[in-house]
């Protein structure tokens, strides 16, 4: 299958496809914005401001004074906590993205079954699913930049001075964003490929569960039946049966 065919087949066609695309793109945008914020906070200078007041007074970072940022962002001991909190916020967002990958799965499985019947191999189906999710995640990564600007407006401009969470975006934010966009796309594509790799859609639409041959099934039923006898009558009774049969054979032939 040519890449152009994969991209055509990955294009959202139904309402549920479009909903899935929007959910994946939206959640990836939020995750990217949070990640950009965490990385920006990580780059802030710490504890380099002038000492205010007399001896014994705590250090007041100049960034707090000059840029109106919250004090805990620039204190050596507190900043890692803030960064980890921002990263932790991405976890439920990414979990939501994984759930969004499953939106409309019944209709999509039916569509994939039609593709399989038309001649798509399991690998083709995984490629289409990866292109579908990868495209949405890539769009989410691209939207991550504007989402970060929005986050900056909400957390870095609107709050009063001294309580702001984000500093003015800089060139390094732009570079980080440029790196994040393809990573988001690849992550989305890989997640979809893994999810679809586990459940290969059959041409008839239903998973072909491995069936036990009839002979094996009967042997298993016989075994279960014998186990049932042991459970119901107790092992002594069953052994007694065998002993009785041996005695019968010896005595009566």
């Amino acid at each position, binding site marked *: *299958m*040519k890449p*152009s*065919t994969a991209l*055509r*087949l990955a294009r959202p*066609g*139904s309402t549920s*496809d479009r909903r899935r695309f929007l959910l994946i793109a939206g959640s990836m945008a939020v995750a990217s914005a949070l990640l950009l914020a965490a990385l920006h906070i990580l780059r802030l200078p710490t504890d380099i401001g002038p000492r205010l007041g007399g001896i014994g007074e705590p250090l007041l970072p100049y960034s707090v004074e000059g840029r109106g940022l919250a004090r805990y962002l620039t204190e050596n001991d507190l900043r890692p906590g803030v960064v980890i909190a921002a990263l932790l916020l991405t976890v439920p967002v990414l979990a939501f993205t994984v759930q969004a990958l499953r939106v409309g799965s019944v209709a999509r499985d*039916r*569509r994939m*079954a*039609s*593709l*399989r*019947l*038309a*001649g*798509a*191999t*399991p*690998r*083709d189906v995984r490629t289409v699913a990866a292109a579908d999710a990868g495209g949405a995640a890539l769009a989410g990564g691209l939207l991550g930049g504007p989402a970060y600007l929005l986050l900056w407006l909400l957390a870095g401009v609107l709050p009063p001075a001294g309580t702001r969470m984000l500093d003015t975006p800089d060139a390094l934010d732009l570079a980080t964003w440029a790196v994040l966009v393809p990573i988001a796309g690849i992550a989305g594509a890989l997640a979809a490929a893994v999810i679809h790799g586990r459940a*290969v859609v*059959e*041409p*008839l639409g239903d998973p*072909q569960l491995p*069936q036990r*041959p*009839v002979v094996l*099934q009967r042997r298993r039923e016989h075994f279960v039946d014998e186990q049932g006898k042991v459970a119901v009558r107790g092992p002594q009774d069953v052994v007694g049966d065998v002993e009785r049969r041996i005695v019968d054979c010896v005595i009566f032939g």
Partner: protein
Amino acid sequence: MTDHPAEPVLEMTAVEHAYRRTVALNGVSLTVEPGEVVAVTGPSGCGKSTLLHAAAGIVRPHGGSVALLGHDLAALDEAARTRLRRSRVGIVLQFGQLVPDLSVLENVALPLLLDGHDRAAAYTAAEAWLDRAGLDADRDTPPAELSGGQGQRVAVARALVTGPAVIFADEPTGSMDTIGGEHLLELLLGAATNRGAAVVLVTHDNVVAAHADREVRLRDGRVEAEAVLR
């Protein structure tokens, strides 16, 4: 590879298959020669569809062997079986099973596109088959806007577009009226006969079965009777 191999296009030997405790096929053997039209008939639940799915490599039988176009299907993995199907086998099921968000033209061209053909060439071939199926005016229509009969004709065009050596059709006229069904069979069997392709036709309808060269009647997962019709 040739389109019309001298050896049988399909050789099924003592094929067995079960769904949990229900035995669908119980030692079925069937041979189909190139260009032959075989109707598989029998009452509901006798294993007709399972036979067709096993023959096309869609279902892996639990016992026996299936050789399709000289390939032992048990020796092929899923991807290889799929590639064999899309390049040399046509499949028509009762409800078309078209891809809902693709246009009629894209649906017909799909096997060629999946096989790596050039888009322009695939579309040209698809347009030719749509023309033969009388659907050239509906090329951009989504399948949801087609009638049942039109959908089946699209499915037949899709099955024929790759120039298959064998076509498997499972109740292709099952959802159609008598006249529509006749037209569909004319299209399917006419194209197959012109190409020398074999057709395995699963049906419970004696009128449809009468179009075949040979009838194989199943009952309870076994071949009950065989009859040469022409």
